[in-house]
């Protein structure tokens, strides 16, 4: 039922979502810890900034990225000056856009567990001879497992589902930027409804399975 192009799109989506999630987790851990601990004036603005992709139309995000990263944007010009290829309409550009787009879905669950973390456990670890970083890795992280699971699942699923950003910054290049949602769009545009059904049903099943596992995980805690 699924053609070779469909499979290419599926694997591309999985690769994009996987990489996006892993990179976002690495960024989200220090960012979420800082947001959970800081009392500085920048806490609230930073929180709002992280949450921005939740309410912004994806096309807006994509549009600004296109402007900034394109050959005439200042980031694009800097990249060209050091001999790098510009990012729009490439997998790397799509990866960067996806990370911005899914940022709140990864940061917020981790920030929530960090905020409710009992700081005395961290202090107890330090009185037992643990360097603060050591205490963070051996006490805070293992006890925040639930937040990481939620963040991973949400970040991954949300990236799979993106469409507007992809169209803006990624385009429609097979094997490079043509992800599942775009492939589905192509099928519909070509009036190929049978192929569209296959992909659409797959995405429904996938999304339901993701949410189901998430609710089971949260129930089990």
């Amino acid at each position, binding site marked *: 039922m699924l053609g070779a192009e469909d499979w290419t799109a599926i694997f591309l989506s999985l690769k994009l979502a996987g990489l996006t999630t892993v990179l976002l987790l690495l960024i989200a851990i220090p960012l979420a810890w800082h947001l959970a601990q800081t009392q500085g004036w920048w806490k609230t603005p930073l929180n709002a900034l992280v949450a921005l992709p939740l309410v912004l139309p994806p096309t807006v995000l994509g549009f600004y990225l296109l402007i900034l990263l394109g050959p005439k944007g200042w980031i694009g010009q800097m990249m060209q000056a050091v001999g790098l290829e510009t990012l729009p309409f490439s997998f790397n550009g799509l990866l960067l856009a996806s990370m911005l787009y899914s940022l709140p879905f990864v940061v917020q669950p981790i920030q929530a567990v960090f905020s409710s973390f*009992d700081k*005395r*456990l961290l*202090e*107890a*670890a*330090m*009185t*037992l*001879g*643990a*360097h*603060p970083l*050591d*205490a963070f890795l*051996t*006490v805070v992280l*293992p*006890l925040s497992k639930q937040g990481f699971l939620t963040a991973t699942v949400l970040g991954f699923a949300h990236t799979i589902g993106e469409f507007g950003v992809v169209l803006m910054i990624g385009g429609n290049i097979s094997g490079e930027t043509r992800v599942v949602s775009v492939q589905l769009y192509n099928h519909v545009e070509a009036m190929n409804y049978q192929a569209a059904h296959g992909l659409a049903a797959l995405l429904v099943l996938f999304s339901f399975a993701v949410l189901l596992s998430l609710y089971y995980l949260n129930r089990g805690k």
Partner: protein
Amino acid sequence: MSTIEAHFHLSLGSFELKLELQLPASGFSVIAGSSGSGKTLLMRCIAGLERPQFAYCKVKDTVWEDSLRGDYLATYQRPLGYVFQESCLFPHLTVQQNIDYGRQRIRLKAVREIEAVIELLNIGQLLKRYPAKLSGGEKQRVAIARALAVEPQLLLMDEPLAALDQAHKYEILPYLRRLQTELQLPVIYITHSPQEMTQLADHVVLMEQGKVRASGELQAVLTRLDLPLAQSQRASSVFTVEVSAYDAEFQLLYLQFSGGVLTVPHMSLPKGSQVRLQIYARDVSLHSQPPMALEAFNSLPAQVLAMLDQAVGYTTVSLQVGRELLLAQITRKTASLLQLAVGQYIYAEIKTAAILS
């Protein structure tokens, strides 16, 4: 004698901690005072968990912190054990792993066998359990073992019994006393329970609004008439006595000290053992004449050191009995009838006394 020096100046909002404290580097030093007097803050400063504006902290021969010279050991570098009010065990680790956590991180080679600590606190049967499966008393015993396992040079305990009900308190107190006798480890212990203080303290620090109101040996602080302890309804004095004989027929223990011999109904204790005796001030009466020979139990010659009138008709008297200090609370009328004056020799009759250990 080696000491612990703690000089801190720390402003937190409207609260100010400002003190210069010198404590013996041995035995139990109890820090007492009402809540909000800065006890916990002082302990956190010693542990390096707070960064005061001015700090000087020296334990025996090692300077842990000297803000004037820019010396600062981070908490994890200080050879201390810390027992929190709530046990603060790591919930994702078993009891054994909790105990090993600090042990795996100490730089110096482990000298003492951990088994001794596990046995001392009687937690051998709990090692495989997770903290969630422990009672409050068990949790605190594990927390104490975990703190001892790093072989600290100073043990800090912040109201370790406060979160426990009365029954569990009695479960832990004996372990704390064994700590005192079996480990040569200085302990700084926060409590606002007079009972824990009289049972455990060698040295007492009284705090008030971020400052040290009094600091000295337990007996001296208990019997200072200008302090709230001696002015309370439950004022008492505590001193150490030696078991000299036992009367099995009447189950009377004979206790000897520099001021004479006292008898207390009690079960038998080995002859020569040292026990701590607590005598409430209201259980002491004063007489100008020696008692008739037949009733001559628990009546000791004493000298009046100081007197202070309390509220509603009472006078508290501090007395020297042998080398020890004793408090008596009598009515103002009795004091007047006895024509009590500082320096006077009289007889103190002790109606009841409690053996603490």
